[in-house]
């Protein structure tokens, strides 16, 4: 029995490598392959230029609390006068014997001191510039009324599924805009190009152009019989052709992600020379795109077997997937409708990878959306909102939750398994169609 299995297995293997190798060589001889892949690289490079440009420019820091301004004209910024207890509105009152600070010292002087958010209701923040602790009364120092002076209180809002942020006046009110924008902008770029550009667009366009004709083109060319006139089942032909397709598409996706990881890792904001913490995110993006291109490939190839204009079905399907991609992105990953798609699971996989690699991502988003508690307004969702720091909103859009209510690694494994099962199911349906197909 074991000998027999050995014989069947190694024979399968010989046929598999023959068809897979042949398919890969066939792709390499086609202009369409190079055109599609070239277009992908061009698009990525173009996006990368915008990113490099953004990372190279500093934004004008904003003085949210206005304490760099010298109200009384005595040469001392208001913040410095408050720190030494003199009256910022009286030119005769200034800290004698102390040289006046440059006004820039009092811009971005009270950055976030939040640590990582790890609970529903929390007290965070630290009054770096002392404009809270110097207030006269306890009630002035505890305006959010949580019993802790000079803090930022984060209260979980079940309705909006986010924090209501209540700060004592003057705590973390003047964050370092430039550092924040760079970090949030960098992450938004990674997730934007990763989730939408690579997982969705590449994940769907590569199979659309490369996999739809995998069997169909051989049928219309009349060359399929070279393969079918051999002792090999049609289901195997489909499978090995797909292996050949993945042999081209997977290294391409992985290579593109590795290139992006390298460039953004070196250019992006970092304490060291490279952003090692991004690697997990890039790996999740690459893995999701690889799985998604496998599932779409199987589905589109089956459409091609089913009908000579299978590409029409593929485009209709891609439109549904586009809708699901937007549902997944705009709902922050929360909408369960996204699970009725391939892309929904692909994005879930990335979100789980992000949660594992950037545990502080939600904190960063919350901080940026609050932005120091300036420009308060009553939002349509029925809560007090603030003027967000630049970069926070894009980052919020491109970040999402896995929506599976399980540990991040478990979400990662589950999404992987679901995508694999989707691919196998598509193969099974495809080979059933293929077996029943008369080839003229």
């Amino acid at each position, binding site marked *: 029995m074991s000998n027999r299995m050995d014989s069947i297995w*190694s024979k399968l293997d*010989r046929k598999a490598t023959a068809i897979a190798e042949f398919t890969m060589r066939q792709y390499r*001889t086609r202009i369409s392959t190079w055109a599609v892949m070239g277009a992908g690289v061009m698009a990525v490079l173009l996006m990368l230029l915008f990113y490099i440009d953004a990372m190279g420019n500093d934004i004008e820091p904003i003085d949210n609390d206005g304490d760099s301004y010298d109200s009384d004209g005595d040469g001392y910024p208001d913040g410095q006068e408050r720190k030494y207890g003199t009256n910022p509105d009286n030119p005769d009152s200034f800290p004698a014997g102390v040289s006046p600070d440059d006004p820039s010292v009092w811009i971005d002087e009270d950055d976030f001191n939040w640590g990582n958010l790890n609970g529903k209701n929390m007290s965070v923040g630290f009054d770096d510039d002392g404009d809270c602790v110097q207030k006269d009364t306890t009630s002035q120092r505890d305006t959010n009324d949580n019993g802790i002076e000079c803090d930022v209180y984060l209260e979980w809002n079940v309705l909006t599924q986010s924090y209501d942020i209540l700060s004592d006046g003057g705590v973390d009110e003047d964050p370092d805009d430039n550092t924040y924008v760079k970090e949030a902008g960098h992450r938004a770029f990674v997730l934007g190009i990763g989730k939408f550009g690579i997982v969705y667009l590449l994940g769907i366009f590569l199979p659309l152009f490369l996999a739809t004709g995998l069997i169909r083109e051989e049928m219309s060319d009349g060359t399929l*019989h070279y393969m*079918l*006139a051999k002792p090999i089942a049609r289901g195997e032909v489909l499978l090995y052709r797909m292996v050949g397709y993945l042999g081209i598409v997977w290294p391409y996706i992985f290579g593109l992600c590795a290139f992006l990881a390298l460039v953004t890792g070196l250019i992006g904001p970092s304490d060291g020379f490279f952003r090692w913490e991004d690697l997990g995110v890039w790996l999740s993006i690459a893995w999701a795109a690889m799985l998604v291109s496998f599932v779409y490939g199987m589905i589109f190839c089956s459409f091609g077997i089913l009908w000579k204009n299978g590409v029409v079905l593929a485009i209709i399907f891609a439109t549904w997937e586009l809708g699901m991609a937007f549902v997944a992105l705009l709902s922050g990953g929360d909408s369960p409708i996204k699970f009725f798609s391939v892309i929904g699971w692909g994005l879930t996989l990335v979100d789980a990878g992000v949660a594992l690699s950037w545990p502080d991502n939600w904190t960063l988003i919350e901080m940026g959306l609050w932005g120091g508690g300036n420009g308060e307004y009553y939002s349509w969702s029925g809560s007090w909102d603030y003027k967000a720091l630049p970069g926070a909103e894009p980052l919020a859009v491109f970040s999402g939750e896995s929506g599976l209510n399980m540990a991040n690694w478990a979400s990662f494994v589950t999404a992987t398994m679901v995508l694999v099962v989707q691919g196998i199911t598509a193969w099974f349906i495809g080979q059933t169609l293929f077996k029943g197909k008369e080839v003229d």
Partner: protein
Amino acid sequence: MMPDMTQVGQAEAKEWAPNHTAPVVMFNQVSKTYGRINALSGVSLGISGGVTGILGTNGAGKSTLFKLMMGKLKPSSGDVKLFGTDPWKNSAPYSRVGFVSEGEKLYDWMTALDFIVTFARLHGMTRDEARTEAERVLEFLSLSDVMHKKIGQFSKGMRQRVKIAHALVNDPELIILDEPLQGCDPLARTTIMNVIKELGRLGRTVLVSSHILHEIERITEQIVILHHGRVLALGNSHAIREMIDQHPHKISLDCEQPREIAKYIMDIDAVTGMSFINPTRLMIETKNLGDVHKELPQVILRSGQRVTGIDNPDDDLQSILQYLTGGFV
């Protein structure tokens, strides 16, 4: 259960076993319809060994017959068996089959050797075996000197030979060739005909389709005539001809004075009628071609006329079909 990563040396024996008691090709009451069109109706055939010519005009059902054998089409009714196995359900018999399709499309970007080696590996051969076998068949088809050239640079005859080499790489017991001589130059035609005859001599079962009677007669005596999806005649070509000889037949004679010779020809019993086609050509009608041909030389001598040409103008497939169907083609 380890995959064969090296793919060198010799591969294991094949696991599918043919049914030796069954004919190589078996068609039992096979019909194939496309909507309201009957491509084949109630075809029954059993073929084992030797070269068999499948004759028929365009649309007679030759390609449909082959596509059913190759499991490309599913019979609408009846059974198709290769070595006792249904090819629509099981591709295993193809380990002993070689198929040359009618289509001319090939992978032009591959070299001849590459092409043969790649598809030989689908028989479960290792790379080594595939290469050895590929070189053997390319040699057999006199393509050794061009085997490293791209197929795209090949002439039509060479392309046809590449297709045949591809079909022979697994040393098949059954070889099916769909119109292999179509469009080939005389040299390629002769080479291919010789290859087919050689395969027959080697004891293989070879099926060759054509719509040209003379072509098939140069290869084999065993023929099947297909017409409108039915088997019209089956057997030895001489036997079929004899059968045809009982039907009205025409012989044309070219000479300077046809009227003079006509007087003598009237004496032949088998002649049933005559007509003058033009001033130098006489058309003789008979129901027994053999008798007329036997007596004709004597009659010509007696007449003293100089005959410049004798021809059986209707001795082609179309005419045979006309005889076999009573003029209803």
